[in-house]
Protein backbone atom coordinates (compact mmCIF):
# COMPACT_ATOMS: atom_id res chain seq x y z
CA UNK A 1 0.00 0.00 0.00
CA UNK A 2 1.27 3.41 -0.90
CA UNK A 3 2.39 5.63 1.95
CA UNK A 4 3.65 9.16 1.69
CA UNK A 5 5.71 11.34 4.05
CA UNK A 6 3.79 13.98 5.95
CA UNK A 7 4.93 16.76 8.26
CA UNK A 8 2.43 18.18 10.73
CA UNK A 9 2.61 20.80 13.46
CA UNK A 10 0.58 19.57 16.41
CA UNK A 11 0.36 21.46 19.69
CA UNK A 12 3.47 23.39 18.75
CA UNK A 13 5.57 20.34 17.89
CA UNK A 14 6.72 19.20 14.45
CA UNK A 15 5.77 15.62 13.74
CA UNK A 16 7.07 13.66 10.74
CA UNK A 17 5.22 10.54 9.82
CA UNK A 18 4.02 8.42 6.92
CA UNK A 19 0.37 8.68 5.88
CA UNK A 20 -1.85 6.48 3.74
CA UNK A 21 -3.59 7.99 0.72
CA UNK A 22 -6.88 9.53 1.82
CA UNK A 23 -6.00 9.22 5.50
CA UNK A 24 -7.83 11.74 7.65
CA UNK A 25 -6.27 13.90 10.33
CA UNK A 26 -8.41 12.10 12.90
CA UNK A 27 -6.94 8.76 11.91
CA UNK A 28 -3.39 10.13 12.06
CA UNK A 29 -4.01 11.57 15.52
CA UNK A 30 -5.61 8.50 17.05
CA UNK A 31 -4.14 5.58 15.12
CA UNK A 32 -0.60 6.76 14.33
CA UNK A 33 0.13 9.24 17.11
CA UNK A 34 -2.01 7.59 19.80
CA UNK A 35 -3.41 10.99 20.72
CA UNK A 36 -6.78 9.66 21.73
CA UNK A 37 -8.03 12.83 23.41
CA UNK A 38 -9.72 13.67 20.10
CA UNK A 39 -12.65 11.28 19.83
CA UNK A 40 -14.09 9.24 16.96
CA UNK A 41 -17.80 8.71 16.38
CA UNK A 42 -19.94 9.55 13.34
CA UNK A 43 -17.07 10.22 10.89
CA UNK A 44 -19.46 12.49 8.98
CA UNK A 45 -18.99 15.87 10.70
CA UNK A 46 -22.38 15.60 12.38
CA UNK A 47 -21.37 15.08 16.01
CA UNK A 48 -18.25 17.20 16.53
CA UNK A 49 -16.44 14.92 19.01
CA UNK A 50 -13.45 14.98 16.65
CA UNK A 51 -13.12 18.77 16.77
CA UNK A 52 -9.58 20.16 16.68
CA UNK A 53 -8.34 23.67 15.97
CA UNK A 54 -6.52 24.50 12.75
CA UNK A 55 -4.85 27.91 12.90
CA UNK A 56 -7.24 28.68 15.74
CA UNK A 57 -10.38 27.72 13.78
CA UNK A 58 -12.38 24.77 15.01
CA UNK A 59 -12.77 22.02 12.38
CA UNK A 60 -13.79 18.36 12.32
CA UNK A 61 -10.71 16.16 12.01
CA UNK A 62 -12.78 13.28 10.61
CA UNK A 63 -13.24 15.05 7.28
CA UNK A 64 -9.89 16.77 6.93
CA UNK A 65 -7.28 14.92 4.92
CA UNK A 66 -4.11 14.75 6.98
CA UNK A 67 -2.29 16.23 3.97
CA UNK A 68 -4.59 19.27 4.09
CA UNK A 69 -3.35 19.98 7.61
CA UNK A 70 0.25 20.26 6.42
CA UNK A 71 1.55 23.83 6.80
CA UNK A 72 -1.00 24.68 9.46
CA UNK A 73 -0.98 24.75 13.27
CA UNK A 74 -3.12 21.97 14.69
CA UNK A 75 -4.21 22.19 18.32
CA UNK A 76 -5.88 19.26 20.02
CA UNK A 77 -7.39 18.90 23.47
CA UNK A 78 -4.02 17.62 24.67
CA UNK A 79 -2.53 21.00 23.81
CA UNK A 80 -5.10 23.15 25.56
CA UNK A 81 -3.57 22.80 29.01
CA UNK A 82 -0.67 24.92 27.75
CA UNK A 83 -2.99 27.88 27.25
CA UNK A 84 -4.69 30.01 29.95
CA UNK A 85 -8.04 29.95 28.16
CA UNK A 86 -7.80 26.18 27.77
CA UNK A 87 -6.94 25.80 31.45
CA UNK A 88 -9.81 28.06 32.50
CA UNK A 89 -12.22 25.93 30.45
CA UNK A 90 -10.88 22.65 31.80
CA UNK A 91 -11.34 23.94 35.36
CA UNK A 92 -14.79 25.42 34.82
CA UNK A 93 -16.11 22.32 33.04
CA UNK A 94 -15.21 20.26 36.09
CA UNK A 95 -16.39 22.85 38.60
CA UNK A 96 -19.76 23.42 36.87
CA UNK A 97 -20.57 19.72 36.58
CA UNK A 98 -20.54 19.90 32.77
CA UNK A 99 -18.90 16.47 32.39
CA UNK A 100 -20.96 13.29 32.53
CA UNK A 101 -19.71 10.47 30.31
CA UNK A 102 -17.03 12.80 29.01
CA UNK A 103 -17.06 11.76 25.38
CA UNK A 104 -18.12 15.11 23.92
CA UNK A 105 -15.98 17.15 26.27
CA UNK A 106 -12.76 17.42 24.26
CA UNK A 107 -14.80 18.62 21.26
CA UNK A 108 -16.76 21.02 23.45
CA UNK A 109 -13.63 22.49 25.01
CA UNK A 110 -11.84 22.86 21.67
CA UNK A 111 -14.92 24.60 20.23
CA UNK A 112 -15.30 26.74 23.34
CA UNK A 113 -11.63 27.73 23.18
CA UNK A 114 -12.08 28.91 19.58
CA UNK A 115 -15.25 30.78 20.54
CA UNK A 116 -13.60 32.61 23.47
CA UNK A 117 -10.57 33.50 21.37
CA UNK A 118 -12.92 35.19 18.94
CA UNK A 119 -15.40 36.58 21.48
CA UNK A 120 -14.17 36.77 25.09
CA UNK A 121 -17.57 37.86 26.40
CA UNK A 122 -20.19 35.68 24.72
CA UNK A 123 -23.83 35.61 25.76
CA UNK A 124 -25.56 32.26 26.26
CA UNK A 125 -27.04 32.31 22.74
CA UNK A 126 -23.62 33.00 21.26
CA UNK A 127 -22.17 30.14 23.27
CA UNK A 128 -24.88 27.82 21.99
CA UNK A 129 -24.19 28.90 18.42
CA UNK A 130 -20.45 28.42 18.86
CA UNK A 131 -20.95 24.92 20.27
CA UNK A 132 -23.81 23.94 17.93
CA UNK A 133 -21.51 21.63 16.00
CA UNK A 134 -20.77 19.37 19.00
CA UNK A 135 -23.49 17.05 20.27
CA UNK A 136 -23.95 15.84 23.84
CA UNK A 137 -26.28 13.00 24.75
CA UNK A 138 -25.88 13.25 28.51
CA UNK A 139 -26.10 16.75 29.86
CA UNK A 140 -28.81 18.66 28.04
CA UNK A 141 -26.11 21.32 27.44
CA UNK A 142 -27.08 23.71 30.24
CA UNK A 143 -24.05 23.06 32.43
CA UNK A 144 -21.78 23.09 29.41
CA UNK A 145 -23.03 26.59 28.56
CA UNK A 146 -22.66 27.54 32.24
CA UNK A 147 -19.05 26.31 32.17
CA UNK A 148 -18.13 28.35 29.09
CA UNK A 149 -19.70 31.47 30.62
CA UNK A 150 -17.92 30.77 33.92
CA UNK A 151 -14.57 30.44 32.14
CA UNK A 152 -15.19 33.75 30.39
CA UNK A 153 -15.91 35.35 33.80
CA UNK A 154 -12.81 33.76 35.38
CA UNK A 155 -10.60 35.01 32.56
CA UNK A 156 -12.09 38.51 32.76
CA UNK A 157 -11.43 38.60 36.50
CA UNK A 158 -7.85 37.41 36.01
CA UNK A 159 -7.30 39.95 33.26
CA UNK A 160 -8.61 42.73 35.47
CA UNK A 161 -5.99 42.06 38.15
Amino acid at each position, binding site marked *: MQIEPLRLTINGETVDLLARPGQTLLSVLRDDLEMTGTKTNCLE*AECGVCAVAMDGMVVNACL*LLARQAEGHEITTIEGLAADPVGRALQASFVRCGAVQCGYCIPGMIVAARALLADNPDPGREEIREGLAGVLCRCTGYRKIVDAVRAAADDLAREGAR
Partner: protein
Amino acid sequence: MTYHRATSADEAVALLARHEGARVIAGGTDIMVALRRAGTPPPVFVDVREAADSTRIGMGATIEIGAAVTHRAIERHAGLARLPALAEAARVVGGVQVRNLGTVGGNLVNASPAADLNPVLMTLDADALVATAGGKRSVPLAGFITGRGATVLGPHEVLAAVRFAAPPPGTGVAFLKAGRRRAMEIAVVNVAARLTLSNGAISTARIAVGAVGPVILRASDVEEALVGAQPDGETFAGVAAELARRAKPRDDVRASAEYRRHLVGVMVARALTRAAERAREDDAD
Protein backbone atom coordinates in the same frame (compact mmCIF):
# COMPACT_ATOMS: atom_id res chain seq x y z
CA MET B 1 1.52 11.16 -5.24
CA THR B 2 -2.14 10.87 -4.40
CA TYR B 3 -2.62 14.45 -3.21
CA HIS B 4 -1.87 17.67 -5.05
CA ARG B 5 -2.41 21.15 -3.71
CA ALA B 6 -3.37 23.57 -6.48
CA THR B 7 -2.29 27.19 -6.14
CA SER B 8 -4.90 28.39 -8.63
CA ALA B 9 -8.06 27.20 -10.36
CA ASP B 10 -6.12 26.97 -13.64
CA GLU B 11 -3.52 24.74 -12.02
CA ALA B 12 -6.32 22.54 -10.69
CA VAL B 13 -7.64 22.16 -14.25
CA ALA B 14 -4.18 21.04 -15.43
CA LEU B 15 -3.88 18.58 -12.54
CA LEU B 16 -7.28 17.08 -13.32
CA ALA B 17 -6.23 16.56 -16.94
CA ARG B 18 -2.97 14.92 -15.87
CA HIS B 19 -4.52 12.55 -13.30
CA GLU B 20 -7.51 10.72 -14.77
CA GLY B 21 -10.16 10.10 -12.16
CA ALA B 22 -8.81 12.72 -9.76
CA ARG B 23 -11.35 14.50 -7.60
CA VAL B 24 -11.39 18.12 -6.53
CA ILE B 25 -11.49 18.70 -2.77
CA ALA B 26 -11.83 21.97 -0.92
CA GLY B 27 -13.30 21.80 2.58
CA GLY B 28 -14.17 18.14 2.08
CA THR B 29 -17.47 18.46 3.91
CA ASP B 30 -19.47 16.85 1.11
CA ILE B 31 -16.95 14.76 -0.80
CA MET B 32 -15.36 13.06 2.20
CA VAL B 33 -18.77 11.96 3.47
CA ALA B 34 -19.77 10.71 0.03
CA LEU B 35 -16.51 8.78 -0.42
CA ARG B 36 -16.81 7.17 2.98
CA ARG B 37 -20.39 6.09 2.28
CA ALA B 38 -19.44 4.74 -1.14
CA GLY B 39 -16.65 2.74 0.46
CA THR B 40 -14.44 3.13 -2.60
CA PRO B 41 -10.66 3.49 -2.38
CA PRO B 42 -9.60 7.13 -2.10
CA PRO B 43 -9.06 8.91 -5.42
CA VAL B 44 -6.18 11.20 -6.27
CA PHE B 45 -7.15 14.49 -4.66
CA VAL B 46 -6.66 17.92 -6.20
CA ASP B 47 -6.97 20.32 -3.29
CA VAL B 48 -8.22 23.80 -4.17
CA ARG B 49 -8.88 24.91 -0.59
CA GLU B 50 -5.91 27.28 -0.63
CA ALA B 51 -5.87 28.22 -4.32
CA ALA B 52 -5.06 31.93 -4.09
CA ASP B 53 -7.52 33.30 -6.61
CA SER B 54 -10.31 31.15 -5.22
CA THR B 55 -10.15 32.35 -1.63
CA ARG B 56 -10.75 36.05 -2.23
CA ILE B 57 -13.87 38.16 -2.07
CA GLY B 58 -13.59 41.04 -4.53
CA MET B 59 -15.85 44.02 -3.93
CA GLY B 60 -16.75 46.64 -6.52
CA ALA B 61 -19.29 47.12 -9.29
CA THR B 62 -19.00 43.35 -9.69
CA ILE B 63 -18.74 41.26 -6.56
CA GLU B 64 -16.67 38.14 -7.02
CA ILE B 65 -16.62 35.39 -4.41
CA GLY B 66 -13.86 32.85 -4.96
CA ALA B 67 -15.05 29.25 -5.07
CA ALA B 68 -12.91 28.31 -2.08
CA VAL B 69 -14.31 31.05 0.15
CA THR B 70 -15.71 29.39 3.25
CA HIS B 71 -19.19 29.92 4.66
CA ARG B 72 -17.51 31.35 7.75
CA ALA B 73 -15.69 33.96 5.68
CA ILE B 74 -18.96 35.02 4.04
CA GLU B 75 -20.61 35.23 7.45
CA ARG B 76 -17.95 37.60 8.70
CA HIS B 77 -17.15 39.71 5.63
CA ALA B 78 -17.84 43.35 6.43
CA GLY B 79 -18.06 44.37 2.78
CA LEU B 80 -21.08 42.13 2.21
CA ALA B 81 -23.05 43.80 5.00
CA ARG B 82 -25.32 45.53 2.47
CA LEU B 83 -26.57 42.07 1.51
CA PRO B 84 -27.27 40.56 4.94
CA ALA B 85 -29.09 37.63 3.34
CA LEU B 86 -25.72 36.23 2.23
CA ALA B 87 -24.38 36.15 5.78
CA GLU B 88 -27.73 34.89 7.07
CA ALA B 89 -27.68 31.98 4.63
CA ALA B 90 -24.01 31.21 5.27
CA ARG B 91 -24.57 31.26 9.01
CA VAL B 92 -27.26 28.57 9.08
CA VAL B 93 -25.14 26.00 7.29
CA GLY B 94 -24.00 23.22 9.62
CA GLY B 95 -22.11 24.29 12.70
CA VAL B 96 -18.95 26.33 13.08
CA GLN B 97 -16.65 23.42 12.20
CA VAL B 98 -18.45 22.80 8.90
CA ARG B 99 -18.56 26.51 8.07
CA ASN B 100 -14.83 26.87 8.69
CA LEU B 101 -14.12 24.32 5.96
CA GLY B 102 -17.16 24.17 3.67
CA THR B 103 -16.91 26.46 0.66
CA VAL B 104 -19.30 28.42 -1.53
CA GLY B 105 -18.02 26.55 -4.58
CA GLY B 106 -18.26 23.13 -3.02
CA ASN B 107 -21.81 23.86 -1.93
CA LEU B 108 -22.74 25.01 -5.43
CA VAL B 109 -21.14 22.06 -7.21
CA ASN B 110 -22.68 19.61 -4.73
CA ALA B 111 -25.99 21.00 -6.01
CA SER B 112 -28.26 19.87 -3.24
CA PRO B 113 -31.73 21.31 -3.80
CA ALA B 114 -31.67 22.31 -0.12
CA ALA B 115 -28.41 24.27 -0.35
CA ASP B 116 -28.70 27.52 1.58
CA LEU B 117 -26.42 29.97 -0.22
CA ASN B 118 -27.48 29.00 -3.73
CA PRO B 119 -31.00 30.49 -3.63
CA VAL B 120 -29.59 33.80 -2.37
CA LEU B 121 -26.96 33.86 -5.13
CA MET B 122 -29.64 33.12 -7.71
CA THR B 123 -31.73 36.10 -6.63
CA LEU B 124 -28.65 38.23 -7.26
CA ASP B 125 -28.46 36.90 -10.85
CA ALA B 126 -25.05 35.42 -10.13
CA ASP B 127 -22.89 33.66 -12.68
CA ALA B 128 -20.55 30.73 -12.11
CA LEU B 129 -17.04 31.38 -13.39
CA VAL B 130 -15.64 28.07 -14.59
CA ALA B 131 -11.95 27.41 -15.26
CA THR B 132 -11.29 25.18 -18.27
CA ALA B 133 -8.23 24.17 -20.26
CA GLY B 134 -9.15 26.81 -22.83
CA GLY B 135 -9.71 29.66 -20.37
CA LYS B 136 -12.61 30.77 -18.22
CA ARG B 137 -16.29 30.57 -19.11
CA SER B 138 -19.26 32.14 -17.38
CA VAL B 139 -22.54 30.26 -16.76
CA PRO B 140 -25.64 31.82 -15.16
CA LEU B 141 -26.30 30.05 -11.89
CA ALA B 142 -29.81 29.04 -12.90
CA GLY B 143 -28.35 27.08 -15.82
CA PHE B 144 -25.36 25.76 -13.85
CA ILE B 145 -27.37 23.32 -11.75
CA THR B 146 -29.22 20.78 -13.89
CA GLY B 147 -30.63 18.37 -11.33
CA ARG B 148 -30.20 16.92 -7.87
CA GLY B 149 -26.44 16.76 -7.42
CA ALA B 150 -25.80 17.59 -11.08
CA THR B 151 -24.14 20.57 -12.73
CA VAL B 152 -22.81 21.46 -16.16
CA LEU B 153 -19.24 21.24 -14.88
CA GLY B 154 -17.19 19.09 -17.26
CA PRO B 155 -14.70 16.44 -16.06
CA HIS B 156 -11.65 18.69 -16.38
CA GLU B 157 -13.31 21.89 -15.28
CA VAL B 158 -13.10 23.61 -11.92
CA LEU B 159 -15.38 26.25 -10.50
CA ALA B 160 -13.26 29.35 -9.93
CA ALA B 161 -15.70 31.89 -8.54
CA VAL B 162 -19.26 33.14 -8.29
CA ARG B 163 -19.89 36.65 -9.60
CA PHE B 164 -22.75 39.11 -9.53
CA ALA B 165 -23.24 42.79 -10.22
CA ALA B 166 -23.55 44.85 -7.05
CA PRO B 167 -27.29 45.49 -6.92
CA PRO B 168 -28.59 49.03 -7.52
CA PRO B 169 -29.73 51.27 -4.65
CA GLY B 170 -33.17 50.41 -3.35
CA THR B 171 -32.45 46.67 -3.26
CA GLY B 172 -33.28 44.31 -0.41
CA VAL B 173 -32.56 40.59 -0.20
CA ALA B 174 -34.06 38.27 2.41
CA PHE B 175 -33.41 34.64 3.27
CA LEU B 176 -35.45 32.29 5.43
CA LYS B 177 -34.81 28.68 6.33
CA ALA B 178 -37.18 26.24 7.99
CA GLY B 179 -35.83 23.25 9.85
CA ARG B 180 -36.40 21.28 13.00
CA ARG B 181 -33.49 23.00 14.76
CA ARG B 182 -31.37 26.06 14.25
CA ALA B 183 -28.07 24.44 13.38
CA MET B 184 -26.70 21.24 11.85
CA GLU B 185 -29.88 20.91 9.82
CA ILE B 186 -30.64 20.53 6.13
CA ALA B 187 -33.44 22.91 5.11
CA VAL B 188 -36.96 21.57 5.12
CA VAL B 189 -37.74 24.57 2.91
CA ASN B 190 -35.66 27.66 2.28
CA VAL B 191 -36.56 30.86 0.44
CA ALA B 192 -34.54 33.74 -0.93
CA ALA B 193 -36.29 36.87 -2.18
CA ARG B 194 -34.84 39.98 -3.76
CA LEU B 195 -36.67 43.21 -4.57
CA THR B 196 -35.43 46.40 -6.13
CA LEU B 197 -37.85 49.28 -5.68
CA SER B 198 -38.11 52.38 -7.79
CA ASN B 199 -40.44 55.22 -6.74
CA GLY B 200 -42.08 52.81 -4.33
CA ALA B 201 -42.94 50.17 -6.94
CA ILE B 202 -41.12 46.94 -7.77
CA SER B 203 -38.60 47.28 -10.59
CA THR B 204 -36.87 43.91 -10.12
CA ALA B 205 -38.10 40.79 -8.34
CA ARG B 206 -36.36 37.46 -7.86
CA ILE B 207 -37.61 34.54 -5.79
CA ALA B 208 -35.86 31.20 -5.28
CA VAL B 209 -37.27 28.32 -3.23
CA GLY B 210 -35.15 25.38 -2.15
CA ALA B 211 -35.89 21.83 -1.03
CA VAL B 212 -39.16 21.56 -2.93
CA GLY B 213 -37.95 19.77 -6.05
CA PRO B 214 -34.82 18.43 -7.72
CA VAL B 215 -33.58 21.95 -8.45
CA ILE B 216 -34.20 25.31 -6.81
CA LEU B 217 -37.63 26.56 -7.80
CA ARG B 218 -37.76 29.72 -9.86
CA ALA B 219 -40.71 31.39 -11.64
CA SER B 220 -39.43 33.96 -14.11
CA ASP B 221 -42.93 34.71 -15.39
CA VAL B 222 -44.06 35.56 -11.86
CA GLU B 223 -40.94 37.68 -11.38
CA GLU B 224 -41.64 39.56 -14.64
CA ALA B 225 -45.27 40.10 -13.72
CA LEU B 226 -44.18 41.81 -10.50
CA VAL B 227 -42.46 44.65 -12.37
CA GLY B 228 -44.44 47.82 -11.67
CA ALA B 229 -46.48 46.18 -8.91
CA GLN B 230 -46.85 47.57 -5.41
CA PRO B 231 -44.75 45.78 -2.78
CA ASP B 232 -47.70 45.12 -0.46
CA GLY B 233 -49.20 42.19 1.41
CA GLU B 234 -51.83 41.44 -1.21
CA THR B 235 -49.25 41.22 -4.00
CA PHE B 236 -46.98 39.03 -1.92
CA ALA B 237 -49.79 36.71 -0.87
CA GLY B 238 -50.64 36.09 -4.52
CA VAL B 239 -47.02 35.32 -5.42
CA ALA B 240 -46.62 33.02 -2.43
CA ALA B 241 -49.76 31.06 -3.32
CA GLU B 242 -48.58 30.64 -6.91
CA LEU B 243 -45.17 29.38 -5.88
CA ALA B 244 -46.73 27.00 -3.39
CA ARG B 245 -48.81 25.66 -6.23
CA ARG B 246 -45.74 25.12 -8.45
CA ALA B 247 -43.57 23.52 -5.79
CA LYS B 248 -43.01 19.76 -6.13
CA PRO B 249 -41.99 18.77 -2.62
CA ARG B 250 -41.52 15.20 -1.44
CA ASP B 251 -42.39 13.40 1.76
CA ASP B 252 -39.17 12.53 3.55
CA VAL B 253 -37.78 11.96 7.04
CA ARG B 254 -37.74 15.67 7.79
CA ALA B 255 -41.22 16.73 6.71
CA SER B 256 -44.25 15.85 4.62
CA ALA B 257 -44.81 17.24 1.16
CA GLU B 258 -48.02 18.85 2.41
CA TYR B 259 -46.21 20.70 5.19
CA ARG B 260 -43.50 21.84 2.81
CA ARG B 261 -46.08 23.22 0.42
CA HIS B 262 -47.68 25.08 3.31
CA LEU B 263 -44.28 26.47 4.31
CA VAL B 264 -43.67 27.80 0.80
CA GLY B 265 -46.87 29.84 1.02
CA VAL B 266 -45.89 31.30 4.38
CA MET B 267 -42.19 31.84 3.79
CA VAL B 268 -42.34 33.37 0.32
CA ALA B 269 -44.71 36.06 1.59
CA ARG B 270 -42.56 36.65 4.66
CA ALA B 271 -39.32 36.83 2.65
CA LEU B 272 -40.83 39.28 0.16
CA THR B 273 -42.06 41.47 3.02
CA ARG B 274 -38.60 41.52 4.57
CA ALA B 275 -36.95 42.16 1.20
CA ALA B 276 -39.26 45.13 0.66
CA GLU B 277 -38.37 46.53 4.11
CA ARG B 278 -34.67 46.20 3.34
CA ALA B 279 -35.14 47.73 -0.11
CA ARG B 280 -36.74 50.80 1.46
CA GLU B 281 -33.89 51.07 3.99
CA ASP B 282 -31.33 50.64 1.21
CA ASP B 283 -32.89 53.50 -0.69
CA ALA B 284 -32.90 55.72 2.36
CA ASP B 285 -29.12 55.30 2.89
